C-alpha cells in the first residue's frame, strides 16, 4: 500500500488544509494526476500523485488541516493489484473476466467509523470515504463528521477569500524575512531586443494563433540558458550555497485580486521556447484561479518577475528565500540606442538582477547579465 502524504511545499510549510479531493476511493490514478487541492499559506495548491494505482481510501477529509507527512490517502499500487489478481483461483473464463474487472475497481477499504459517526453521516447524507478520522487508529468520530458537515455547508467563496488573505500574509512573511536576512545587491543592464523580437515575429508567422510565442517565453528560456553558464545563481542559501541541478524558474504571476502566485517552470533549460510557452499557457490560467500543483509551487530555484507589461521600465526584485537571486524584466520600449558610433532606435529591455551577497558577488551577477544579453542577441541559437 502506498501512502499518499501531505507534501512539503516549502521549507516553511508545516501543515496544510486539505481543501478538496478530486478523486474518490476506487479511482485509478497515475503519476502526475492531480488528486487533491490543498490550502496553504501560499494558496490553494493542486497536489499531484507520483504513483500509479487505485485509491484505496481517502484518509484525510476535506477541510481538515494536517501536518506535512500525514497520510492523506492510501493507494493500492498496480503491483499490489497484480498480486491480488495472481492469487485469484482459476475459474471459468467468463467469471474470471468479471473477477478481473472487479479487481481493477478494488472494493473500497472498510471505513472505520464510530457507530455514532456512521449514524450522523447516514442521517446527514455525508460520505464517510471523504472524511479523515482523528480517533484511535484513524477512526472517524462524531466530531470529524460534524466538521465535514460544517465544511459542506460553508460556501466555497469564503474559502477562496480566506485564501487570498493567507497569500498576503505569506508574502508579507517571506518578503520581511528576505529583507531582514538577505543582503541584496542589485545590477541592471539594458538589452537591445531587436534581434529577439524579429526572431519572435518570424517564428510566430509559422505558428497558429494558439501557438504564438510571447517575448516572455523567450526571456525565460534565455534566463534558463544563462543560468546553465552561471549556476551559482540557481541555488538555495541553506547553511551555505546549495546549487540546484534543475533549473526551475519561478515565474511571478500577479493576481488581479492582489497577491502573487509563483509557479515553477520546470527544467527551463531543457525546454524549447515553444515548450516554455506551452507551460505558461497551462500554468497561468491555473495560477489565476489558484489551482497549482504542489511541485509547481515548491520547486522554484530562482524567480523571474516580469513587470514589463505596464509602463514600468525597471524592476528591482526582492529575493524569495531560500533562493539567491531574482531577475526582473521591465518594459520593452523603443529607445535611442548608440552602437558603433551610430544612433538608432531600438526596442530596449531593462533587465535587473537582485542577488544574495552571501551567496554570490557582483562579479557573478554581472556574468549572468552578460550571458543573458549574448543569448538574446542570438535568438536563433537558442
Amino acid at each position, binding site marked *: 500500500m502506498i501512502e499518499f502524504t501531505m507534501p512539503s511545499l516549502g521549507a516553511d510549510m508545516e501543515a496544510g488544509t486539505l481543501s478538496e479531493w478530486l478523486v474518490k476511493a476506487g479511482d485509478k490514478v497515475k503519476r502526475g494526476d492531480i488528486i487533491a487541492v490543498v490550502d496553504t499559506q501560499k494558496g490553494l495548491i493542486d497536489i499531484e500523485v507520483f504513483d500509479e494505482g487505485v485509491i484505496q481510501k481517502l484518509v484525510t477529509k476535506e477541510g481538515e488541516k494536517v501536518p506535512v507527512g500525514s497520510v492523506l490517502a492510501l493507494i493500492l499500487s498496480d503491483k499490489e493489484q497484480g498480486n491480488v489478481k495472481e492469487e485469484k483461483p482459476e475459474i471459468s473464463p467468463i467469471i474470471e473476466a468479471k473477477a478481473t474487472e472487479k479487481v481493477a475497481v478494488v472494493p473500497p477499504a472498510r471505513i472505520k467509523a464510530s*457507530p*455514532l459517526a456512521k449514524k450522523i453521516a447516514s442521517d446527514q447524507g455525508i460520505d464517510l470515504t471523504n472524511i479523515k478520522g482523528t*480517533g*484511535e487508529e484513524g477512526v472517524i*468520530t*462524531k466530531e470529524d463528521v460534524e466538521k465535514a458537515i460544517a465544511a459542506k455547508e460553508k460556501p466555497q467563496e469564503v474559502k477562496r477569500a480566506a485564501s487570498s488573505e493567507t497569500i498576503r500574509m505569506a508574502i508579507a512573511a517571506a518578503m520581511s524575512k528576505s529583507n531582514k536576512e538577505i543582503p541584496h545587491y542589485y545590477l541592471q543592464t539594458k538589452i537591445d531586443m531587436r534581434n529577439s523580437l524579429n526572431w519572435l515575429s518570424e517564428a510566430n508567422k509559422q505558428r497558429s494563433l494558439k501557438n504564438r510565442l510571447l517575448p516572455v517565453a523567450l526571456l525565460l528560456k534565455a534566463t534558463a540558458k544563462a543560468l546553465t553558464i552561471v549556476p551559482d545563481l540557481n541555488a538555495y542559501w541553506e547553511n551555505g550555497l546549495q546549487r540546484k541541478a534543475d533549473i526551475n524558474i519561478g515565474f511571478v504571476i500577479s493576481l488581479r485580486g492582489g497577491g502573487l502566485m509563483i509557479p515553477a517552470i520546470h527544467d527551463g533549460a531543457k525546454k524549447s521556447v515553444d515548450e516554455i510557452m506551452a507551460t505558461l499557457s497551462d500554468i497561468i490560467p491555473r495560477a489565476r484561479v489558484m489551482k497549482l500543483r504542489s511541485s509547481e509551487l515548491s520547486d522554484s530555484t530562482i524567480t523571474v518577475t516580469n513587470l514589463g507589461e505596464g509602463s514600468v521600465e525597471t524592476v528591482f526584485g526582492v529575493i524569495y528565500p531560500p533562493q539567491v537571486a531574482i531577475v526582473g524584466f521591465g518594459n520593452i520600449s523603443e529607445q535611442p540606442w548608440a552602437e558603433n558610433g551610430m544612433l538608432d532606435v531600438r526596442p530596449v529591455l531593462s533587465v535587473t538582477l537582485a542577488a544574495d551577497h552571501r551567496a554570490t558577488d557582483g562579479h557573478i551577477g554581472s556574468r549572468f547579465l552578460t550571458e543573458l544579453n549574448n543569448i538574446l542577441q542570438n535568438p536563433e541559437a537558442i
Partner: protein
Amino acid sequence: MNNNNTIQLTYREALKQSIRQALQKDERVFLMGEDVGRYGGAFAVSKGLLQEFGPERIMDTPLSESGFVGAGIGAAIAGMRPVVEVMTVNFGLLAMDQIVNNAATLYHMSGGQVNVPLVLRMSSGIGRQLAAQHSHSWEPLFAHIPGLKIVSVGTHEDARQVLLAALEESDPVIIFEYTSMLNLESEISTNPETVDLVHAKIRKEGKDISIITYGAAVYKSLEAALDLAAKGIDAEVVDIRMLRPLDETTIFTSVSKTHHALLVEDAWRSISISSEISALIMEKSFYELDSPVQRLGGVEVPIPYPKHLEDACVPQKEDIVKKVIKMLHHD
C-alpha cells in the same frame, strides 16, 4: 437540599451510624455475624452497639457462615429484618449455597409466596496487603444471580444510607462495603437524602466521557475526573451503586450524552460488571458510541502480598486518566 450543614466522618462511622439508625427504627432489625458484638466488629464497625442494644439485637455467631447466613434467611422468611454481616466477602463463599440456592430462589420457586427480606453486609476489596484469599472483589459473582439485589457502597453518603434503603426491600440485598475505605474521612450532609437504590448515581456531571464505575473505584474515578478537568476533559462519573438489578437507563442516558464510555472496577476484568455493562451498551446504545467501550478492571491474577504488586492489580487514578486521554485522542 435545604439543610446545608455537613459533618466530617469516616466511612466506618457512616456505616455504624446507619446500623444504629436501622436498629433504632425497627424492632425487627438485628445484627448478626462473626465478632459483631463483644469484639466490636472485625473492623470496629459495630463497636459499642452491643452495649447499646444488647445481645438479642447484636448477635455474635460462631464461624458458621452457611449456618448463620441461612438462619438470616430463615429469620427473614419468618418476619424479622436480619442484618447479617459476613466478616469479609472471602468467607461469603462458605455461605454461597445459602445465598444462591435459598435467598435467591425461594421467592420464585414458591411461586411468589416466600419473601426473603434479608440484608447481607460483606466487607470487600483489595488494598490492605491481605494477599490472595482476603482481597477478593466478588461483586460480579453475586451480581450474576437473579433474585439477589447487589449494592456497592462507593461513597460515605451511601455508607450512611444504603442499609436503611436496603431494609425497605422485600428481597435479599447484599451490600458490599470496602475495607480499604474504612478510615477515609469525608463530609456528608447531616440531613442526607434517602438513598434511592433503584437508580445509579451521577457523582459528577460531565459531557465528554462517561466513567461508569462502582465501589472502591468511585473515588478513584472522581479524582481522575478532577485531573482530567485540568486537562480540559469534562468527564461524567456514574456510580452504578446497584449492580443488580442494573439501572440501565441512567447508564444509557449518560452514554447518549457523552458518546464515550469507560468502565472501571477493581474486580477481575473478564466476566465482570464491566463486561455486562459493555455488552448492554453495545446492544442498546451502539449508535450513540463515538469510540469503542473500554474497560479498566483488575489484572487477572490472585492478589499478591507486596504493596507495589497489589497496587498494580487494580486500576488506579493515573490509569483512568491515561485511558480517558487515549480514548478521547487527547494526546
